[in-house]
C-alpha cells in the first residue's frame, strides 16, 4: 500500500497552527525519516497519519482512497504506530502485550486463540525477544520495551510502520540495532516512517527524508539530494558541518563546536512537541 499525504494541515483547537500544508508520499520498501528540531510537529504529523489526531486541512490517501472516509479499524490494518514509550499500568506479560497487535483483524467479542498467539510468537522471534516473552513489560529495560512495541506492530501486520523517535531513549548500540531493524523491515516490503532529530540517522539510512522546520514547512526528497550543511544549520539554529568520510563511505553531521558561532540560538530552545 502507498500512502500519499496531500496538503495536510493541523492546528490545535486553541488556534495554534503546527503545520499548514504538507505533501509527501510514503512508499513501501523505503525508509522515510521525518527530520526536524524539537517542537517542529514531527510527533503531531505521525499522530495525524495514524488518525489519532484529525487533520484540520488536507487529506491522506491510502492507495488513492481518502482516509477521512475510512474506519479506525481499517486504518489500523494499514498503519501501525510505535509510540515513543509505552507506559503500562499493569504487569502484562510481553506475550500478552504483543498479541494485542492482532486486535484490528479480530471481531469485537473475539479473544486471541492459538492462531493469534502463533502470530505474536513469530513477531517475538523476529525481534529476538523469546527470552523475555513471559516477563512483565513493566520490568524490562527501555530498549527492550521499544523492541516489544515494534514486535506488537509486526503482529498487527500493517503495510506501513510509523515510529515516533524510536531511538530517543536508547544508547548508541541499541540505536544502531533499531536502525538496522528498520532497514530490514523496509527490505521486507514495509513502508517505514520514523521521526528523528538526529541528522546522522538520516545519513545512516540513506533513503527518503522529509525535513520539517519550526514554521511548519516541509522539504521532501532523497536524503543525499536535499540534506546539506546550510539546511541543517538553518534547521537547528546552530553551526553544523556535514563531512564526507572516505573510510566509512558516508556523510556525517557534527557540530562545529561551542562558543560564539556554535552557540545554541534562541529559536532552538523550544519546548518538546506534543
Amino acid at each position, binding site marked *: 500500500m502507498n500512502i500519499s499525504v496531500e496538503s495536510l494541515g493541523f492546528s490545535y483547537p486553541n488556534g495554534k497552527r503546527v503545520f499548514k500544508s504538507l505533501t509527501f508520499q510514503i512508499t513501501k520498501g523505503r525508509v522515510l525519516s521525518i527530520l526536524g528540531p524539537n517542537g517542529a510537529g514531527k510527533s503531531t504529523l505521525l499522530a495525524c497519519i495514524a488518525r489519532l489526531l484529525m487533520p484540520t486541512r488536507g487529506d491522506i490517501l491510502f492507495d488513492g482512497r481518502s482516509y477521512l472516509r475510512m474506519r479506525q479499524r481499517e486504518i*489500523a490494518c494499514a498503519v501501525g504506530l510505535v509510540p515513543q514509550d509505552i507506559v503500562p*499500568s499493569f*504487569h502484562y506479560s510481553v506475550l500478552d502485550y504483543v498479541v494485542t497487535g492482532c486486535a484490528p483483524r479480530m471481531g469485537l467479542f473475539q479473544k486471541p486463540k492459538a492462531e493469534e498467539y502463533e502470530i505474536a510468537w513469530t513477531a517475538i522471534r523476529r525481534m529476538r525477544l523469546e527470552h523475555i516473552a513471559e516477563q512483565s513489560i513493566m520490568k524490562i529495560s527501555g530498549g527492550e520495551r521499544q523492541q516489544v512495541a515494534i514486535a506488537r506492530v509486526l503482529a498487527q501486520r500493517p503495510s506501513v510502520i510509523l515510529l515516533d523517535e524510536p531511538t530517543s531513549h536508547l544508547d548508541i548500540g541499541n540505536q544502531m540495532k533499531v536502525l538496522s531493524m528498520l532497514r530490514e523491515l523496509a527490505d521486507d516490503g514495509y513502508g517505514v516512517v520514523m521521526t528523528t532529530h538526529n541528522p546522522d540517522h538520516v545519513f545512516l539510512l540513506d533513503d527518503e527524508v522529509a525535513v520539517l522546520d519550526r514554521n511548519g514547512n516541509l522539504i521532501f526528497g532523497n536524503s543525499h539530494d536535499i540534506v546539506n550543511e546550510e539546511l541543517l544549520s538553518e534547521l537547528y539554529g546552530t553551526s553544523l558541518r556535514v563531512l564526507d568520510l572516505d573510510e566509512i563511505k558516508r556523510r556525517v553531521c557534527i557540530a562545529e563546536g561551542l562558543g560564539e558561532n556554535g552557540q545554541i540560538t534562541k529559536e532552538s530552545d523550544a519546548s518538546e512537541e506534543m
Partner: protein
Amino acid sequence: MEFERNRRYHTLLTGLAAALAGFCLIALSVGRYSMNPADVIRVLVERITDTVPSDYAMHNVVFIIRIPRIASAILVGASLSLSGAVYQGVFKNPLVSPDLLGVSSGACVGAAIAILGGGGMSMIQISAFAMGMIAVSISVAITRVLRSDSNMALVLAGIVTSGFMTSVLGILKYVADPETQLAEIVFWQMGSVASVNRAQMLAVLPVFIICGSLLLALSWRINILSFGEDEAKTLGMNVPLFRGIVIACASFLTASAVSISGTIGWIGLVIPHLGRLLTGPNNTKLLPVTILLGGLFMLIVDTLSRAAMSVEIPLSILTGIIGAPFFAWLLWRQREAVR
C-alpha cells in the same frame, strides 16, 4: 507453558466455584435458626423433586429468608468486584473503585429521598438505582461541557459529582427526622442485605446477567483500553464508544448492587487486587476469577455479620475491618510493584 498456565487457571476457577458452593451450604445452615447441612440438603432435594416438605419451618427459612439473602450477597459482591476490576482497567489505575464516577453517592441521595418521601424498600431500591445512574450521567455530561473525552476529565468530573451528591445527602440528613428517617438513612448507608426479598433480588438479576456477560465478552478489549487511549486507537478501537459501553455496564452493575444493599466499601478495590495476584492482569482471566472471589468474599462477610454476634453487624463495617488490613497485606505482597 501456555497449556500449563491454562490448566492452573481452570483448576483455580473450579476450586473457587467449589468453595462458593460449599460456603453456600454453610451459609444456609448457620444463623439464628441453626440447621444441620444434611437437613439443608434434604430440604433442597425435596424442593427439586417437588415432594411435600417434611419440615415447613426449615423449608421457609431456607427458601424465603436465606436463599434470597445469600443470592443477594453473592450478586452484590460479584457486581462490585467486577465493576471495580473493569474501572481499574479502563482508568489505567489499580487504586480506582467502582464509585469513582459518583454512582454510590448518587445512590445514597436516591435512597435518602425515598426514605424522606416515606417510600418502602422497593421505592428505596428504584430511587437509589436511578440516582446512581443520574450521578454517572452528570459526570459524563460534565466532560461533554468540557469538550474532553479523556479519562482525566472523567475522573475529575466524578470527583465534582461525588462531592456535590455528598453535600445534597448532608442536606437531606439535616432535614430528616432524627428519630426515624435519619437513623434509616445512616443504616442504609452502612450496607446490609438482611431485608432483601426474592422479588428485589430478581429485579437486579437481569442487570447482572446482561452487563456481566457483556463485560466478560469484552474482557480482552479492556486489556487494550488499559494500555491507554492512543494505543487503543492505533489498534483500531473506537475508544469513546467502547469506553462508554464498558463504563455504562460497570455503572449499571454498581448501581444495582448498591440499590439492594446500600453502600459497601472496600470490596470493589480489594477483590480485583487479590484476583490479579492469582491470575495476573489479563482481564480474560481476571474478570471470571474476580466475580467468583467477590461473591465468595461477600457471602463470608454477610454470614459473619448475621452469625458472629447476636445483633447484625452492618456490612460496610465488616468489609472495612477485614478489607483494610487485607489490602495492606496485598500491598505488602506486591511491594515490588508499588515501590
